[in-house]
């Protein structure tokens, strides 16, 4: 501990440590890499078979959902199980509105509705924290599902709605890929903004956050709105592909859980973390549902337990640990060599 000269006047320090104003060279490089990866991903449906296309679409859906989920829940540690509430709402706006408005307008409308819905929910609930928020968010999806079911009953329609929009599989994939790209860009922007910093502080210690002057309720609501808007738009984009929408499918709690599991598997402290969970999980899911169609839920539960137990920091955590170990190993190797050459 240094205890001398502490009381001396502050000395201006000019050492630079990664500034946030302007885009650094490293950030340009990352943006370029991301652009190339997206371009490569866009080619997949053109070269792949129908089976590959359907898996690619699944991956795109869950990457958009898990990444936007992580935008809010990653830094704040508020585990939201409300994804299905927004995803399903987006679906129903498209399903219910196709007779009234063109599809692209409905997709936008789904985003706006998702944002408003999330703002109301967020303002009402983000003051509660921990397990109470988890349970509330789960209940929210269920509540919306019951309301829609009841509405359909009252309006005397069928138990579900048919959604006919003429789109090719490639087009579905590209739409979802574009949404994912927007999610990433927004996430990147948040990560380097004051808002993103505020959320990391909130996630670490909310009491400290308020004493730093952060309007914690506002920051959380803004992020919850952004995250939920993406979920609603994802629902709107997926609805025509499913062609038939009913409450049990659109508001399935299973979807909310899957999104959380995938994000946790990948890692929620890096923007690209959820992607590393979505890909293995989707492939594993294909394998399970193809080979053990009767035990899917059981195996999913088992997978969840194993993930939480063995890789609490996700795939990203594993990668970073490996890199760190490699770095330390290289460092000690270098030390050893230096010592050898000195001795010689």
């Amino acid at each position, binding site marked *: *501990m*240094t*205890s*001398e000269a*502490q*009381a*001396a*006047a*502050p*000395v*201006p*320090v*000019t*050492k*630079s*440590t990664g*500034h*946030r*104003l302007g885009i650094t060279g490293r950030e340009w490089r990352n943006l370029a890499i991301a652009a190339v990866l997206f371009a490569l991903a866009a080619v997949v449906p053109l070269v792949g078979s129908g089976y590959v296309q359907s898996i690619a679409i699944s991956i795109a859906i869950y990457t958009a959902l898990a990444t936007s989920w992580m935008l809010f829940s990653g830094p704040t540690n508020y585990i939201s199980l409300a994804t299905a509430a927004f995803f399903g709402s987006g679906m129903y706006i498209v399903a219910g509105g196709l007779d009234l408005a063109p599809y692209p307008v409905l997709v936008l409308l789904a985003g706006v509705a998702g944002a408003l819905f999330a703002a109301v929910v967020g303002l009402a609930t983000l003051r509660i924290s921990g397990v109470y928020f988890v349970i509330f968010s789960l209940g929210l999806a269920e509540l919306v599902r019951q309301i829609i079911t009841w509405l359909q009953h009252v309006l005397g329609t069928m138990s579900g709605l048919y959604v006919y929009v003429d789109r090719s599989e490639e087009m579905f994939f590209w739409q979802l890929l574009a949404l994912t790209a927007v999610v990433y860009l927004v996430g990147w922007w948040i990560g380097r903004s*004051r808002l993103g*910093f*505020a959320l*990391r*502080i909130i*996630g*670490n*210690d909310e*009491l*400290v*956050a*308020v*004493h*730093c*002057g*952060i*309007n*914690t309720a506002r920051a959380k609501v803004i992020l919850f709105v952004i995250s939920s808007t993406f979920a609603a738009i994802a629902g709107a984009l997926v609805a025509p592909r499913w062609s038939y929408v009913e409450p049990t499918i659109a508001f399935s709690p299973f979807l909310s859980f899957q999104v959380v599991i995938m994000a946790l598997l990948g890692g929620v402290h890096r923007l690209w973390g959820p992607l590393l969970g979505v890909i293995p999980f989707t492939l594993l899911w294909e394998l399970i549902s193809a080979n053990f169609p009767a035990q899917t839920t059981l195996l999913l539960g088992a997978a969840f337990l194993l993930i939480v137990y063995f890789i609490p920091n996700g795939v990203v955590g594993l990668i970073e640990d490996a890199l760190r170990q490699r770095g330390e190993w290289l460092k000690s190797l270098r030390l050893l060599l230096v010592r050898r050459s000195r001795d010689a």
Partner: protein
Amino acid sequence: MPDSPALTAHAVSKRFGGLVAVNDISFALAENEVLGLIGPNGSGKTTMMNLISGALRPSAGEIRLYGEDIAGIGASRIARKGVARTFQLVRMLPGLTVLENVTAGGVFGHARRWGQELNDYAHALLQRVGLPNAGDVAMTALTYIDQKRVELARALAGDPKVLLLDEWLAGLNPTELKTGIALIEQLRAEGRTIIIVEHVMHAIRSLCDRCIVMSSGAKIAEGTPRDVLADAEVIRAYLGTADA
């Protein structure tokens, strides 16, 4: 001495159910004054700090910062008006680097900075509290005392007008205590108004213009450190009997 009161408390009380943690406390604090808040454990000192910083909402009474009532408006708004604090038990942000722990206090608070300017400012503050090279270190790698230093740097990052130090000097060795006291002296010389809760009487004597002694939530004495520490009731509150 009092020019314009920087902070005033008027008949402030805080009840937790049947327990009255702070009972009808009033005081006025001039700008640039250092006030010591002392008393035995459980006498309500930290609760009083929590009421001023906004961590708790008073059950009754007024707290005014430069004439403006801040009682119950919430900690974030109070922080933005220029009140910063440290906590009795250090509250760090374990997932952030030491530098980020400091910059956290300088983005949303009273004085706001961002980018390189903020980082430079935070580095200078780290140097000032005695941790010149700790910026990139993980917060959890620091000793408890060093964490307290970081917490002070975080409080200073927003350039507060009023600084609340809750037992910030506790646990320092004699050398560190000396530099700690010198640092607080210097903060006062910059024009800040400071309230310190402290059990280190040596620090109280050398730093404070005035002291308020609390016991069971009530103010039992107020005056210069020398006077209140000689007060019979204060001695009784602290020590109970005359033989210790």
